[in-house]
């Protein structure tokens, strides 16, 4: 019988001994490699990043935005951290079935993600001074939201706006993905 089987099949009376042994081994291992906890955390972080990348690849809308930003950077030197700030907004608000935003420069060194369906329009802009703007126009062309401040818009609210926008597009043009082929 193997040690492992001994460990798991031991009668109740021996379990506490097994646990003590295991605990001793863990302590000994940690003591022998002081950096192991850090390495473990680093490895976990690397795994998390790899997983995040995998999720991004699975999310067409975010991946398309990443590609668009790369193209923009061939024309424009983006300011500050606008790229990462806009992607934070998009990762938080786009799901796999979300309609694709069009990402452009803002004419200077910032970025805009915008969705348009007829007159209906939603845009998030990140500028290099650390501000954002959020604009929402309804299907009659009337401006319904117009906010500008420092930092980020309410990301849960943005997610709801993108969800509503997607529902409106799917109802009107269920084959919207054909526009991007």
């Amino acid at each position: 019988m193997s040690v492992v089987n001994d460990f798991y099949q031991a009668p109740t009376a021996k379990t506490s001994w097994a646990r003590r042994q295991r605990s001793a081994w863990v302590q000994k291992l940690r003591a022998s490699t002081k950096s192991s906890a850090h390495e473990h955390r680093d490895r976990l972080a690397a795994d998390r990043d790899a997983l995040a990348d995998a999720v991004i690849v699975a999310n067409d809308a975010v991946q398309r935005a990443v590609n668009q930003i790369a193209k923009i950077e061939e024309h424009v030197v983006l300011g500050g951290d606008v790229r990462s700030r806009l992607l934070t907004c998009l990762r938080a608000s786009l799901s796999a079935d979300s309609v694709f935003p069009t990402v452009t420069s803002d004419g200077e060194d910032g970025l805009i993600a915008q969705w348009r369906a007829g007159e209906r329009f939603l845009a998030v802009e990140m500028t290099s001074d650390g501000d954002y703007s959020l604009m929402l126009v309804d299907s009659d062309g009337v401006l319904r939201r117009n906010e500008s401040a420092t930092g980020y818009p309410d990301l849960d609210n943005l997610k709801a706006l993108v969800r509503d926008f997607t529902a409106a597009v799917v109802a009107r043009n269920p084959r919207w993905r054909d526009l991007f082929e």
Partner: protein
Amino acid sequence: MTATDPEWVVDDEDVPDEATLFRRVPDQPDFLDVDLNGGPPRLGLGVFSYKDEDGMSVYVSSRMKDEDISDEELIDWKRVYLCRFPVATVRRADAATPYPDGTAPVGSDTETAGGVVLDVASFPDDERVQRSHGLVRIPIPPKAAGWRPMWNAFRIKLMQATHVKVAKSADWIVPTTNGDPARST
């Protein structure tokens, strides 16, 4: 410069309401966006930039007529598009449309009336083109306190009204509203 600075002139009454303003738009990725409903493309917000503490650069058709130049002489068609919108649209203050419950929509109190002033440019080499140059302005100068929400409301109004041309020989792409003619005409 501040919003109350007397040097900040927003509008020149000598430019007639009937005049058209032309703006050169650099050929950047996806400035011409996608209508998810399958309608014609339209210029996005990014082309309407308010900067350099001056305003938004345009060419004024009434001056172009005086100088005897056509819109096609304004630009290098390989690197830029041309877009156009009426002076009347720039000056128009959109009325707020209340929600059915009678409340005013958020942002509806933002001023959208702007103006245009003539401003001789230092480029390109053709002096006739330089003299046709103007600047679109709103009551708050770029970067002054409170400019951004006002510019956002203003540039959305322009975006809805703007016609765009992407090649010398191409027709103007005119925005439509649910199949109706462009808002600007």
